[in-house]
């Protein structure tokens, strides 16, 4: 038995913890918190063992996945399996998801300690969530992945709505939860339809079978639709434009939930799906341009909304959206390059595409660390000051130094300051976006625009992150503060800040090769080729774009510093009655929520009212009308029974006459007489 054969334990352990915490959590210390932490830690250890086992096995050397299946569901002639599929991508997902979850669960002990009995529900639900995430990572086929995908969606719904009752803002919280579920559901529905097409084309949903037979079906007319529909699922789950609107609202949940689900893990599921489906996605380069464009647009679009937001969590949420856009952009560009590379047999393009793929994955991991750090830091702040409005904060640096400086590390990381992890991956992302233009490919100009957008986004990111930091931690205190958070909360912050600094450095080592191994596993014929880590680093520091981005970031930080720390330009000016038009549009989130409300109200409730009216008036009306007609007709006919015997005799005579008449007619027309 090899270690990796126990991979099924990885999702199973949190699942058991879910059951335990759910049923007997209130009888255990911390209301199930310890169970959940133990489960997450055990899952992490197990994931590490599995990864190690796989890394050292022959399968890894031969670029083959480890697959173990059992029959799950028979659909006609097709058998859908339930199993595990271990390659480097799954290992990475398992590792960072379980690791961050462990830290966040520990953090939750402190953050949620005042919630008493409700913690049982909390810890049960986050355990279930972890099951979903880890299950997603190890799934061996799309349907299984979809199952875990939806379980995460459910947990997201439940946890966003953690305060949707017995809470003064219950109504808003529950609407946010509902919105999150419904909007992601729209994506999920598309994804499911995409799965139908895949199943129809390939006769299987197994990764291995599909990737193995992709060559035979690559010209199927339905395949582009499948790709786009699957990407629809990504748009929903990873909150890309235009289904992004649920994520800012999802901040209604506890901050730990935002950190875990809506920053570090669940929203990465979409990214994971794109990465996992590379063999399929690379069959259609036009679709990949679309993917990249969505990613690039989301990046700048979301960043713009973060510029003037006063809610600390919302700022982070928009920043998450924006960073997710980066990842999608990188993966889209990478897939585009590989697609053209395999088509034209151009090894350089494949190399560049692989770099894009690596960039996307690396950014996903880095983002998980620094965004979790930022969210947890903001949680710590909220915990201390009891509000999410940054205008009520300020000067907290003195009172909660650990939080302040760990968050500063996070801000440096996301802003892309060298050495910090965000710098490496962001640069790679931008490089990947630039590559198609650089190589002069068909849609190069589109990618050029995306690259420029990415650059601007980098500037905006630096600005709004430091705006947040300065507003929160510098200047005069504007509200009361409990002081530094307990150790259970600061400890995860410290750990995460270490990772936020260092996790980017893996690029210097074998990381690229390790990640691309997954691609080689799923696309053995594509000739995946990866540059050495140090070559990549060298390239980063020799490209002018790196310096441009760096300058932009520093300028952004500087502006934020002058506006919010030095108050050289008073941002209060924006808060006057005569706000600029753009400011108002952004504050209204580009009127997207209203539009959604209108559309869903009209398409949903409006039509429903119509249907209800038809149901009541037309259909049921017909039924009741018929019965009333019968009853009324009976009443009418009864009136014929007048009680006068002479009338009765007349009816008899009339009957005879009519019968005679009928006979006469029949007889005459029948040729009688």
């Amino acid at each position, binding site marked *: 038995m090899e270690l990796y054969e126990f991979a099924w334990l990885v999702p199973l352990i949190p699942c058991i913890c879910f059951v335990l915490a759910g049923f007997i959590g209130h009888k255990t210390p911390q209301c199930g918190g310890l169970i959940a932490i133990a489960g997450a830690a055990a899952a992490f250890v197990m994931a590490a063992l599995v990864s190690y086992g796989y890394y050292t096995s022959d399968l890894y050397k031969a670029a083959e996945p480890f697959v173990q299946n059992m029959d799950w569901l028979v659909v006609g002639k097709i058998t859908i399996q339930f199993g595990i599929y271990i390659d480097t991508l799954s290992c990475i997902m398992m590792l960072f998801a379980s690791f961050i979850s462990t830290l966040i669960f520990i953090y939750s002990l402190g953050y949620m300690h005042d919630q008493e009995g409700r913690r049982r529900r909390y810890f049960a639900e986050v355990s279930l969530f972890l099951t979903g995430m880890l299950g997603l990572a190890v799934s061996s086929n799309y349907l299984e992945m979809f199952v875990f995908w939806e379980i995460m969606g459910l947990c997201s719904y439940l946890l966003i709505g953690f305060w949707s009752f017995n809470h003064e803002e219950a109504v808003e919280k529950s609407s946010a939860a509902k919105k999150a579920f419904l909007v992601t559901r729209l994506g999920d529905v598309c994804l499911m339809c995409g799965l139908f097409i895949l199943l129809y084309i390939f006769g299987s949903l197994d990764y291995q079978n599909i990737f193995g037979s992709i060559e035979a079906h690559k010209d199927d007319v339905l395949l582009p639709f499948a790709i786009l529909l699957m990407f629809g699922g990504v748009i929903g789950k990873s909150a890309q434009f235009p289904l992004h609107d649920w994520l800012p609202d999802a901040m209604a949940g506890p901050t730990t939930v935002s950190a875990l689900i809506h920053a570090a893990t669940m929203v990465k599921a979409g990214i994971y799906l794109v990465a996992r489906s590379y063999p399929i996605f690379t069959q259609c380069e036009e679709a990949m341009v679309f993917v990249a464009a969505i990613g690039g647009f989301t990046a700048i679009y979301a960043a713009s909304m973060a510029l003037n937001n006063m809610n600390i969590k919302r700022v982070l949420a928009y920043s998450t959206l924006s960073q997710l856009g980066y990842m999608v952009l990188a993966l889209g560009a990478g897939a585009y390059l590989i697609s053209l590379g395999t088509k034209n047999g151009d090894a350089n393009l494949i190399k560049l595409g692989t770099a894009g793929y690596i960039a996307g994955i690396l950014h996903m991991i880095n983002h998980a660390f620094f965004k979790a750090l930022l969210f947890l830091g903001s949680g710590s702040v909220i915990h201390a000051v009891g509000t999410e409005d940054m205008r009520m904060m300020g000067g907290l640096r003195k009172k909660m130094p650990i939080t302040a400086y760990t968050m500063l590390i996070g801000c440096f990381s996301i802003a892309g300051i060298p050495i910090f992890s965000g710098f490496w991956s962001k640069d790679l992302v931008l490089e990947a976006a630039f590559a198609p233009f650089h190589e002069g490919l068909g849609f190069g100009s589109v990618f050029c625009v995306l690259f420029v957008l990415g650059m601007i986004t980098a500037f905006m990111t630096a600005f709004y992150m430091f705006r947040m930091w300065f507003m929160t931690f510098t200047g005069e205190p504007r509200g009361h503060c409990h002081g530094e958070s307990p150790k259970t909360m600061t400890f995860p912050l410290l750990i995460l800040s270490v990772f936020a600094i260092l996790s980017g450095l893996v690029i210097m080592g074998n990381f690229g090769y390790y990640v691309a191994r997954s691609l080689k596993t799923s696309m053995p014929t594509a000739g995946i080729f990866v540059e050495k880590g140090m070559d990549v680093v060298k390239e980063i520091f020799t490209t002018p774009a790196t310096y441009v981005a760096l300058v932009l970031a520093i300028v952004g930080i500087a502006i934020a510093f002058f506006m919010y720390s030095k108050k050289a330009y008073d941002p209060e000016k924006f808060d006057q009655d005569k706000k600029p038009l753009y400011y108002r549009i952004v504050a209204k989130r580009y009127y997207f929520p209203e539009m959604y409300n209108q559309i869903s109200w009209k398409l949903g409730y409006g039509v429903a009212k119509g249907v209800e009216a038809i149901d009541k008036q037309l259909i049921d009306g017909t039924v009741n009308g018929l019965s009333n007609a019968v009853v009324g007709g009976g009443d009418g006919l009864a009136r014929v*029974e*007048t*009680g*006068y*015997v*002479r009338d009765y*005799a*007349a009816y008899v005579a009339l009957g005879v006459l009519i019968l005679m008449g009928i006979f006469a007619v029949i007889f005459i027309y029948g040729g009688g007489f």
Partner: protein
Amino acid sequence: MINMGFFLVLAAALFAIGLFGLLSNKRGIVSLMCIELMLNAANINFVTFASFKSDATGQVFVIMSIAVAAAEVAVGIALMLNAYKMKKTTEVDKLSTMRW
């Protein structure tokens, strides 16, 4: 030569008169008489056919029907009397409490 048609038309006319009487008259006893007319119209038919076909069956039938008619009238008058006893009237239009 008097042919069968005359008798049949007579019978039909008699029947029609009886029917008219039944429908137009509100006195019970007269109604009974009208019905007798109709029965007799049928009897005329029978006799006519029997005579023209030289077949005795029709005449037998008539004898039977006369007997039946007699019984009918006997019972009918008794019922009219009963009605008169109960309601102090034999006008059929007044006997209309049950309806609808």
